[in-house]
Structure formats: structure tokens, C-alpha cells
């Protein structure tokens, strides 16, 4: 129930401490636990997003908050990383490539989320958004930790946002609402798929640390 949610959020908060590099964090925890933590965080974020998206879409108003709403992705440069992929292709990637894709996607998604209209909606909505961004930041750091502990290099280059120059930030308010809708939708799909990715990764990595501990206790 809620207890693992709180626990994983605490982990996310811990990973947010600026003084603590993700590297140290995961080395102490062990790779397997690091992956487990990342998985838990993903599930927690999925849960949080449901409430956040509901509130935000209500703020955008109908038809955005209607369950069957499915607007076109209008002709604009692909800004938000699309979660739609060929599943076979996705599964065929190496762990490294898949983790890197996750890392890059969430870093960019985080930037877009942070840019959601700061003046928007009620204080409650802004507060929820802020809270979600903190948790998402925790996820990004957590993935970095997993990559480090598996010996993979972090993706280089500007993971940062925005659009290639020349692409306007949504040219009108309605298109901006559409962008916001798609951001939340893609985020939802990414989290859903990442959970599966981390679950599969967890099974690949032997829980070596756990075994050691048992032996030490004389079991």
C-alpha cells in the first residue's frame, strides 16, 4: 500500500541530496537493491502521475480531461520524447542502450514538466507539480546510479531541453494545452514501460550482496 510509496519517496529524497553523488549511493546499496529502488520509484511516480494528470487536465478543461480524448500530434518538431517504440526493437537493445534511453527521456521530460506554466492553476496544483518534479529528479539520479554500478557510462552531451532553435514554444495557448496533454501522456507511457524494463533488469542481476549478508549472519 502506501508504505512502500513513502519509503521509495524517502529514497528519492535521499538521492536528491546535492552533496551525495549517485555513485556513492548505489555502491553502498548494491546493484540489485539499486535496481529495485529504481523500480519502486517508477511505480510510485506512476501512481503520483495519475492524480497529478487528473488535476492538471481538469485545469485545462474539457475536452482535455475527457477519457477518450485523443488529439493529433500536430506538425511541430518532436519535442517531448515519444514513448511509442517498436517493442521488439526496444527489447533487442542492450541494457546499456535501454538504460541510456530511459535516462535521456526522463531528463528531458523533467525539463518540460518544470516549464509547465508556473502561474497555472491553484496553489495546490503547483504544489503537486513541484512535488512530482522532485520525485522525477530522484528517478533520473537513481537511473544514473544503476548505470554507474553496472559500469555503464552516463549519456554524454546536453541532455537538457529544449527545442532546436527556430522552433517556437507553442505559438498559441490552445497548442500549448495540446503540448501539455501529450507531455503527461508520454510520461505515463514511459513510466509504465520503464517499470517493466527495471523488473526485467532486476532478474538479470544476481543479488550477490544479499547472499553475502546471509552468510555473515551464519545462516
Amino acid at each position, binding site marked *: 500500500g502506501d508504505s512502500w510509496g513513502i519509503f521509495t519517496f524517502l529514497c528519492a529524497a535521499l538521492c536528491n541530496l546535492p552533496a551525495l553523488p549517485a555513485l556513492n549511493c548505489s555502491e553502498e546499496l548494491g546493484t540489485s537493491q539499486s535496481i529495485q529502488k529504481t523500480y519502486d520509484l517508477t511505480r510510485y511516480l506512476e501512481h503520483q502521475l495519475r492524480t497529478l494528470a487528473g488535476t492538471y487536465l*481538469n*485545469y*485545462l*478543461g*474539457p*475536452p*482535455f480531461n*475527457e477519457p477518450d480524448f485523443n*488529439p*493529433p*500530434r*500536430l*506538425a511541430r518538431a518532436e519535442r517531448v520524447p515519444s514513448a511509442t517504440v517498436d517493442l521488439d526493437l526496444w527489447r533487442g537493445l542492450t541494457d546499456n542502450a535501454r538504460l541510456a534511453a530511459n535516462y535521456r527521456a526522463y531528463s528531458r521530460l523533467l525539463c518540460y514538466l518544470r516549464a509547465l506554466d508556473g*502561474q*497555472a*492553476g491553484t*496553489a495546490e496544483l503547483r504544489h503537486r507539480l513541484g512535488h512530482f518534479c522532485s520525485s522525477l529528479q530522484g528517478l533520473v539520479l537513481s537511473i544514473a546510479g544503476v548505470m554507474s554500478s553496472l559500469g555503464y557510462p552516463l549519456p554524454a552531451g546536453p541532455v537538457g531541453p529544449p527545442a532546436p532553435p527556430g522552433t517556437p514554444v507553442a505559438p*498559441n*495557448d*490552445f*497548442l500549448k*494545452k*495540446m503540448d501539455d496533454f501529450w507531455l503527461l501522456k508520454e510520461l505515463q507511457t514511459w513510466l509504465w514501460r520503464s517499470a517493466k524494463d527495471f523488473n526485467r533488469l532486476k532478474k538479470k542481476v544476481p543479488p550477490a550482496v544479499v547472499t553475502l549478508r546471509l552468510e555473515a549472519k551464519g545462516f
Partner: protein
Amino acid sequence: VSPAADPAVISPQDPTLLIGSSLVATCTVSPESHLRAEDLYWTLNGRRLPATSYTTLGPTTLSVALTRLNGSKQQSGDNLVCHSRDGGILAGSCLYVGLPPEKPVNISCWSKNMKDLTCKWAPGNEGETFLHTNYTLKYKLRWYGRDNTCQEYHTAGPYSCRIPKDLALFTPYEIWVEASNRMGVAVSDVVMLDILDVVTTDPPPDVHVSRVGDLEDQLSVRWSSPPALKDFLFQAKYQIQYRVEDSSEWKVVDDVGNQTSCRLAGLRPGTVYFVQVRCNPYGIYGSKKAGIWSDWSNPTAASTPRSERAAGGCDPKGGEQNTTLRRELKQFFGWVKKHAYGCSNLGIKLYDQWRVWLQKSHKARNQVGKDPST
């Protein structure tokens, strides 16, 4: 397959309109979409608009007439959308229908221990402008020109702001609030105040309520003066309020003056009382004016002694259960006294608090199990 240009263009795009006004909007499809005016329809906030309000202005342009618009359904704007026959979205426009703000009113401010200044206000027209309205608190020292803007909002409710530092104590401030939204700006009247006139402080700490020997009708209340203001010359004024545990009616003792102790008299024997104290930093820096009362301290409970001789007829209903519990607890605390505390006062205090808790949970249990037919 995404077309190079947007499939359609709506005009006006994202207009701001006064409540009750009318609007004619047009949707022009791009030539690449191969659609015509008769293939289009409009929705507003997800609801299809009647075809009777449409007018074809050209082969690729359809207009819609909206009359007597109500305030926007959501502050992000009403969604006016141009659709193709199959329901697909071609273009949209956000309508901001509302009112300009009215002058914010009822500005009141207070300073906690002269360290900061918090102000709150009320929006003019009961807040409903249907548009996102921004409030900015501004202030300046009376005889120095520069306007300052408050930065920390919502510290004491949605219409509040806090100025955390650099307060001038002996110069009056001018304070006002500006409200602005898409339709206009409104500025409140200017309030002039002296920080020293609106000082408040923390509730008095260390409130202790104890019996006065065996006196059945009295309790002694003691507290400390709020530490934050101890360095400033001021005459604190205190107020005490107390009530019987079963009642919601507070009795206020007003003339406590400057002391940090007081005796409550005329109380009922064998009764549990809740007591709270608050402080007013009266006369800061020699001023003759009152400040602002602090919050009440957390309630402290105590009970007056009950004489051992049967008082007759005073026991509340359910007294039997009470007596058994009382006996058990007395035995328990007797043990505690012997083995833990040496101070009988403490024992009684704990017992009183226990009794309060027991009464409460007893009541709660009664209420839960209450027979609806009673």
C-alpha cells in the same frame, strides 16, 4: 503523416472578452487538408455548438456566433475547437471570458516579534473574476521614494504575503495591493502603519496549571513570558481563558496584567478544566498602544480536588464506571509514585491527564455504539 502547416487557423486566437459579450469566430482550413466549410463543426468545452449558429463565409471558412458569454469555465480558458466531420481536431482557441479585478480590500498586517511583516487582504469582488488574477503586495517607507514588492506569498492563506527582513521600526510604512488579470488592474487603498503598532508574539511558553493545596475551588496558573521579546522593553499583557472539559464555553480572565501567574477561583470541585494563556506585547519601546494578541497556548488540563466526604448528587451519569476506573488508576499511580516519582503533584497531574483521556475515549466509544433509535 503530418502536414507541414497547421491544418486550420482560428480567428481570433486566444481572445480576452468581457462577460456577456458576443463573439464571432472563424475557422479556415488549409488547402492541403482537402476539407471544405461544410465538413467542419465547432465545440466549446467539449460540447458541440448548434449548426444554427454557423455561417459559411467561403469555401474553406466556417464561422460561429457566440452570444452573451458566461465567465470562463476554467481559468486556463474555454476551449473553442474547430473539428472535421470525423471528429478530428483541426485547430483551437482559448477564450478568456471574465471581469477585470476589483480593488483588494481589508488589508491587515502583523509583525511577529518585529522580525517580519505579514499582511493579508481580501479580493474585491469576492474573488470571482473567472480569470487568473495576480496579486502583488507593495510597500514603501513613507518618506522615502522607492516602491518595494513583497516576494513570499500564501504564507497565511491564499491572499497573504510576508516581508521577511530589513524592517524599519520607527518610520511608518505605506502598504497596498495590486490585482491584475488579462482584463485590467485594480489597486487597493493605501494603508499606513508603524511596525511597532502591529507587533505580536508567540504564545507564552511553559504554561503550568496546578492545584492550590487542598482548595477545591481554585487552580493556580503559571507561565513564562515569551522569550523572543525579552530584550525589548515592553509591558506584556496576558489573558487567560478556561473551560470545563464538557463545555465549549470559555471564561476569560482579562485583567491579568503583567504578572506571569494567576489564581483561578470560584471553580467547581472535582472538575477537569482546560486552560490557555495568550500574550499582548503592549507598549513596545514605551508606546502606549496595544499590540496584537498572540495565539492561545496549547490547552493545559488540570482538575480541582474533590473533598473525600460524599458531595451528594454531583456525580455525572455513568459514575459507577468512573469510580472503578478511578480506583484502578489510583492504585496504578500509587505504584508509580512509589517506584518512579517522588513528587505527589506530578502523580496527580498525570492522573488528571489520564482521566481526561479516558473520559474522551469513553465518550467516543459511547457515541460510536449509540443506538439510533434513542
